[in-house]
């Protein structure tokens, strides 16, 4: 008996309490997770601030980690390009010849446009401003389609601005931190883009469905649509400026019309944020100082790059 009691230690005595505390901690954190999910579902402002604070904190680490990944990508591209350089050169020459003709045409149309505008006393749209930022995280994931870019309210990014890359729409700014922003991709299930079919002018909505090809909805019943038709933003609702290239119709059956976006998701390491000065139906933009460049007369598009 004496031998047994001699083995009793303080640490041994605290074991039941420690086990109880651990179980309590587990249940506490599970409960906290549920509570946060409910608050997140209700889109509480505090949750968004917390999310942005975390993203702003880790974005420099993401930026550093993305450097070797991009270097490897560039090296792979370099090797690939080496093997196709002859073919690519021939294609580029042909394309260049075509583009020279287009430049002539564009100049002629520009003069004609200016003349007609002068006759109509047309008030031109505000010129857009551009900001190029690096993609630091592609959280594409399976269930949530978004990107993080290394530009935020410090670079005068505002919620709702359209984001493009290589001429094709990617999505829009959904959250703005101080030095990081989240881009909601057009493929995300929460994305809705008012569009028009370029050839017919029929209005519709491009709805993301978490697949690589979003769906074209609410097109008039009698609208003639076929694969290959170009889809551009309509500008309705005031979120996206009109005329941005969204994609081409990939499949048009009686039940579903899908759109193949113009943007090549595999080379999406940078993104261009457009500022057309449209605030749209989204909640009020973040409290940021007004960009000094916005008060300048709109002559040429203003471009900036964030590295």
């Amino acid at each position: 008996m004496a031998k047994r009691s001699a083995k009793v230690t303080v640490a041994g005595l605290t074991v039941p309490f420690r086990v109880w505390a651990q179980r309590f901690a587990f249940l506490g954190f599970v409960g906290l997770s549920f509570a946060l999910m409910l608050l997140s579902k209700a889109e509480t402002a505090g949750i968004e601030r917390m999310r942005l604070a975390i993203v702003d904190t880790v974005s420099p680490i993401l930026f550093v980690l993305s450097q070797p990944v991009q270097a490897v990508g560039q090296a792979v591209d370099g090797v690939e390009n080496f093997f196709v350089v002859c073919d690519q050169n021939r294609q580029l020459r042909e394309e260049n010849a075509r583009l020279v003709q287009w430049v002539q045409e564009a100049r002629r149309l520009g003069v004609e446009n200016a003349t007609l505008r002068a006759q109509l006393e047309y008030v031109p749209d505000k010129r857009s401003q551009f900001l190029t930022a690096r993609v630091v995280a592609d959280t594409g994931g399976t269930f949530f389609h978004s990107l993080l870019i290394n530009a935020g309210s410090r670079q005068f990014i505002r919620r709702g601005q359209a984001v493009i890359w290589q001429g094709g729409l990617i999505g829009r700014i959904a959250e703005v931190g101080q030095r990081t922003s989240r881009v909601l991709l057009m493929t995300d299930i929460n994305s809705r883009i008012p569009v028009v079919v370029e050839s017919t002018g029929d209005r519709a909505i491009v709805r993301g469905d978490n697949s690589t090809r979003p769906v074209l909805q609410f097109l008039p019943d009698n609208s003639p649509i076929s694969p290959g038709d170009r889809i551009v933003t309509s500008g309705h609702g005031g979120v996206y400026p009109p005329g941005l290239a969204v994609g081409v119709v990939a499949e048009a059956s009686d039940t579903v019309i899908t759109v193949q976006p113009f943007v090549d998701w595999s080379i999406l390491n940078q993104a261009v944020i457009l500022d057309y000065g449209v605030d749209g139906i989204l909640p009020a933009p973040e409290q940021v100082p007004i960009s000094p460049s916005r008060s300048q007369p709109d002559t040429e598009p203003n471009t900036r790059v964030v590295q």
Partner: protein
Amino acid sequence: MNTLTVFPLMRRWLGNLVPVATTFLFVLIGQLPLPVPLLSDVAPAFALISLYYWIVFRPDLMPYAAVFGLGIVQDAVAGAPFGLYALVYLLVQALVLNQRRFIAGKPFWVFWSGFAMVAPVAALATWMLASLLRGTLLAPGTAFVALVMTIILFPAIAWLLVHAQRRFIGMVEA
């Protein structure tokens, strides 16, 4: 206390942070833009591998609070509803702690098979919670491919973690 005793203490203290630090890095690595077509859609769950590894080998260095925090960071970066990955990681921790005695100290294939059973549970829980919170049944196709890739890549990540453990912490279990 002189410098001779301070340095080993510091080394041990920093070593104890390795499980959380490596898992944190894998949370971020899993979100990097990969220059391979469509790979970001089916990116392996590196963080889950790291989490499983450390919960099996050093559960004392992976407390509930840390697992919760890692989940919250993943939620924030991935744009997921707050608490989703935190809850999934906590469930994984509870599951692995419960079955740990059948995995720790056994051959590698047992360790790998254990992960092959835990990873689908985590993927299913993520899919169910994401579908519930987004109000629609999400297509599980790409999640399934990501799951298969995660299980296939497990030995490579586990190999890295074994080296990290040997180098910074030692093989002594709690």
